[in-house]
């Protein structure tokens, strides 16, 4: 039996998360799971398929290139996965919004459970996943014939891209009369992707307003960092929703995470506590964020941020 990985892509490029999901698939393969195939579904995706074919450990790339798969809407993409899943023992995607949207449809139509947000492979049928906002780690065993799972990409190191898998097209085209794409409003940014950045600097309610988030820009520029935000900052309208780090936002695990004006609610900690080094800057020395920070600096962020920028 073999493993199918659904590739993540946007803006005509293979998303970095896919190489991490293939790494998880390799762990399953080493436990006895067989070959690894990748599915790239979308419209005008040949360059993405070529990028996926280079990922180490991939045997074959399926390309489903058709207008019906544009924007990876859940209904047609789910139907396509159901068609392709026969013959596979595992189907994996990243726990991206695309993966979360479509994988449960596949699982339900195959009458199997789904394992969400897998962070460790213990064996061919046994996996670890966080529950209760990461305050507990469950080890679960699936006896379903088909294992459908989403993978937390930050928990697996990306595979290299030295391979050369064959690319085959999928002729199967499904119908979709139920849903249609209207528009997308994507935040334009030259900064690294939040989920993949080596350094992340996040602002919380302590930033005071959206304008003050610009104080993070100079530091992010110097460190090559992505900029994140706490839920409180997003809810208050200081920052865009796709910047939210936490239980229900993005999960990050960079080498360096700098939390500015963030108190450290458990829902926020769930999204960043696996960072290698955490720095907290906060006026309130009792803030819970200091309990997880490697380096804490108590003080006025409006004085500290400009000074930090000048000294980096």
């Amino acid at each position, binding site marked *: 039996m073999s493993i199918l990985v659904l590739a993540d892509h946007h803006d005509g490029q293979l998303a970095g998360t896919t190489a991490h999901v293939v790494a998880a698939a390799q762990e399953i393969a080493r436990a006895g799971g067989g070959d690894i195939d990748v599915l790239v579904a979308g419209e005008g995706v040949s360059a993405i398929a070529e990028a996926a074919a280079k990922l180490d450990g991939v045997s074959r790339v399926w390309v489903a290139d058709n207008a019906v798969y544009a924007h990876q809407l859940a209904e047609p993409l789910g139907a396509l996965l159901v068609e392709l899943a026969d013959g596979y023992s595992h189907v994996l995607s990243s726990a991206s919004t695309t993966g979360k949207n479509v994988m449960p449809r596949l699982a339900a139509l195959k009458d199997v459970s789904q394992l969400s947000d897998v962070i460790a492979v213990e064996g061919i049928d046994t996996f670890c996943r966080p529950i209760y906002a990461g305050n507990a780690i469950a080890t679960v065993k699936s006896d379903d014939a088909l294992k459908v799972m989403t993978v937390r990409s930050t928990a697996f190191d990306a595979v290299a891209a030295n391979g050369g898998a064959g690319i085959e097209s999928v002729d199967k085209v499904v119908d979709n009369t139920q849903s249609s794409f209207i528009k997308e409003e994507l935040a334009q940014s030259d900064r690294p992707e939040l989920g993949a950045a080596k350094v992340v600097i996040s602002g919380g309610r302590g930033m005071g307003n959206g304008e003050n988030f610009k104080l993070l820009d100079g530091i992010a520029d110097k460190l090559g960092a992505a900029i994140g935000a706490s839920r409180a900052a997003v809810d208050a309208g200081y920052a865009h929703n796709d910047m939210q780090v936490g239980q229900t936002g993005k999960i990050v695990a960079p080498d*360096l995470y700098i939390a500015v004006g963030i108190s450290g609610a458990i829902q926020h900690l769930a999204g960043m506590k696996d960072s290698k080094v955490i720095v907290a800057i906060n006026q309130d020395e009792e803030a819970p964020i200091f309990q997880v920070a490697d380096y804490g600096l108590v003080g006025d962020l409006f004085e500290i941020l400009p000074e930090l920028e000048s000294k980096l």
Partner: protein
Amino acid sequence: MKVLVAVKRVIDYNVKIRVKPDHSDVDLTNVKMAMNPFCEIAVEEAVRLKEKGVASEVVAVTVGPKAAQEQLRTAMALGADRAIHVQTDDKVESLAVAKLLKGVIDEEQPGLVILGKQAIDTDNNQTGQMLAALAGLPQGTFASEVDVQGEKVAVTREIDGGLQTVELSLPAIVTTDLRLNDPRYAKLPDIMKAKKKPLDVKTPEDYGVATGSKVSLIKVEAPAERKGGVKVGSVDELVDKLKNEAKVL
């Protein structure tokens, strides 16, 4: 149009959970329970649709033990007209919940079904999507805006990188994200009135659904505890530590 809204009884989001000493599960004895926050947003959206005249009736449904009727009463205090309780003491996972909700859809024939995008206990984020697949309906997940227009609904979704708007034919399934609305609090007179609203009790057998799952819980452990580090006295000291001690700069 009838709107069906699904709610789940979970641990209150302010409670810090503990793992049982024998690692069999988390310890929920004497822990404060509440309606899942995303389900509160779902109820609020359904009630607003009724207030706008889009929905004619709001029906709340839950799957769970007898105590979960508290959450149905809360939903009715917030404005749901009646409730359906699929009562079971079994641990019911997403797929079985989706099958039960499919049974409720078949009976009730709602025009729109609204669920929370995930429950904060299992963090699965599956049930709405599974329900959509089983019922053969389109889905608008992680919604931050829901706009019903005649036979269609436009749903703005929170996706990685920004927002996406899709148009779905009705009936459809919507799952809520945090910024869809700010749920109201129930007023005392409404809480009293909710006690008299109709609540139907059903069982999984009524829908011909087995609640078992082929996924077994082997163990539950606390995550590796992260220890707090040191407080530094100045920006200079911080930069020095990051360069020379942590070596991340």
